[in-house]
């Protein structure tokens, strides 16, 4: 190797080495390395294809309706109408491909339903919740509630059946002696469609004033704290500042 380069002047020999090295690099990069290894566009298209080819496990809402049309119709009218079948029954793609062998889960026991319906203070107000320890212990949920058309087996008589949190709060407040209906008018339909037909709330300051105004005459009002409606609170309805289920007197 060394003798070969002796023929050329020293600087030229070095230049040849450099050019040769660059050539080798060029061949490696442009010829030897296959295109998919250096072109990200090809790799990405490949990855997208691979990602799209992954097996689907949840078949989707409409797939179940094709066979189970009766249950689908029942569910469509109940409170669980927006619920996908697979929310409770688990992934069902296998069941669609092989309906006899693969059966979706039917959740039984008292642990499944409380995952949504156990009382949790972080849940939005109005979402139906129960205390799984106190609520009919040892009974299966489905023995009273049809999961495809859930509703309370008997229409609750007491407001506290649904509004337990408010009832418990009111029970230790100064308003303990007031019935819910003293302030709220609940239409009969509220028990059937609780969210579309709601009870009334007091809309005037004079309503609370019946007990809490300076010149209140009401029997109940004997020991109630009194204020001058003309001076206190101005334009607001009382419950915009005071929480009537637990009036904050002693604090």
């Amino acid at each position, binding site marked *: 190797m060394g003798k070969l380069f002796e023929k050329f002047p020293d600087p030229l020999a*070095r230049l040849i*080495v*450099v050019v040769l*090295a660059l050539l*080798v*690099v060029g061949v*490696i*990069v442009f010829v030897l*390395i296959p295109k998919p*290894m*250096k072109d*990200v*566009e090809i*790799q*990405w298209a*490949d*990855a*997208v294809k*691979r*990602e*799209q*080819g*992954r*097996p*689907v*496990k*949840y078949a*989707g*809402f409409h797939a179940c309706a094709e066979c189970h049309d009766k249950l689908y119709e029942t569910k469509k009218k109940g409170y*669980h109408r*927006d*619920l*996908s079948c*697979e*929310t409770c029954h*688990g*992934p069902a793609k296998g069941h669609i491909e092989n309906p006899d062998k693969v059966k979706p889960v039917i959740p039984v026991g008292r642990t499944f339903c*409380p*995952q*949504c319906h*156990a*009382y*949790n*203070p*972080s*849940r*939005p107000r109005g*979402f139906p919740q129960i*205390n*799984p320890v106190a609520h009919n212990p040892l009974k299966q949920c489905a023995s009273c509630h049809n999961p495809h058309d859930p509703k309370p087996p008997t229409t609750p008589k007491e407001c506290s059946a649904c509004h337990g*949190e408010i009832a418990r709060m009111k029970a230790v407040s100064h308003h303990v002696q007031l019935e819910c209906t003293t302030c709220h008018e609940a239409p009969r339909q509220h028990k059937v469609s609780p969210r579309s037909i709601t009870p009334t709330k007091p809309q005037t300051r004079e309503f609370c004033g019946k007990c809490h105004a300076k010149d209140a005459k009401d029997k109940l009002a004997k020991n109630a704290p009194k204020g001058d409606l003309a001076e206190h609170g101005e334009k607001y309805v009382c419950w915009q500042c005071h929480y009537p289920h637990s009036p904050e007197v002693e604090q």
Partner: protein
Amino acid sequence: MNGRRTFLRGFLSVLLSGGAIGGILKILPSKADAREAPPKGQKWYGFGVSVDKCIGCARCMEACKNENNVPREPFFFRTWVERYITRKNGTTAVKAIEPNAEPSPDTASDKSILRSFFVPKLCNQCASPACVQVCPVGATFQTKDGVVLVNEKTCIGCRYCIQACPYGARYLHPVTRTADKCTFCYHRISHGLLPACVEVCPTQARVFGDLNAAASPMSRFLRMNKIHVLKPGLNTEPKVYYANLDGEVR
């Protein structure tokens, strides 16, 4: 003389080494820049979360693990639900809830709690994603319809993207040793299905759809709600939109 020879030898060997080839001739990550906003007619997927509807039932986490073979251990998630508890003294505690955990009405009687609520989280599929920018091998990329995917064939598991994601949406898959994250269930949406978490959500707290579509649950969600995104100041332009988001969550 000798100095120049050693320099040249060193220089050539560096030149020949793989890293330099990649660096000088820009083989791989050169094209990994974020795409601009989509052309009309092209699908551009987005996701909506109604925070006030989430009941924290963890069905979404369960469905995601089933659908996407996410490891069962409770610290690998593509989507998760956080519980925010704000106390009267102004402090806020955030804790991810666990699926199938025993229901615990623990905080019901705690008078120091001002408010508490659930916030579902997932990969924000940013229009300008930090993870794509940092990937040294171009394994993380954005598809034409705006979903950020990981190419697990080329991912080297260096975890730069996991560090770079401001939303903590990525994890290192313990089996493949590559980065893994929410793909909006890309295999489902490209066949016209909804992502698994949207499919199973019992209260419709999760909405999914094409942001370019004129009429869809997604465009209705954006029209009817006040919309926030997480960490808007980072200019990642998330495509997961939150409705009724509390000020504590940002």
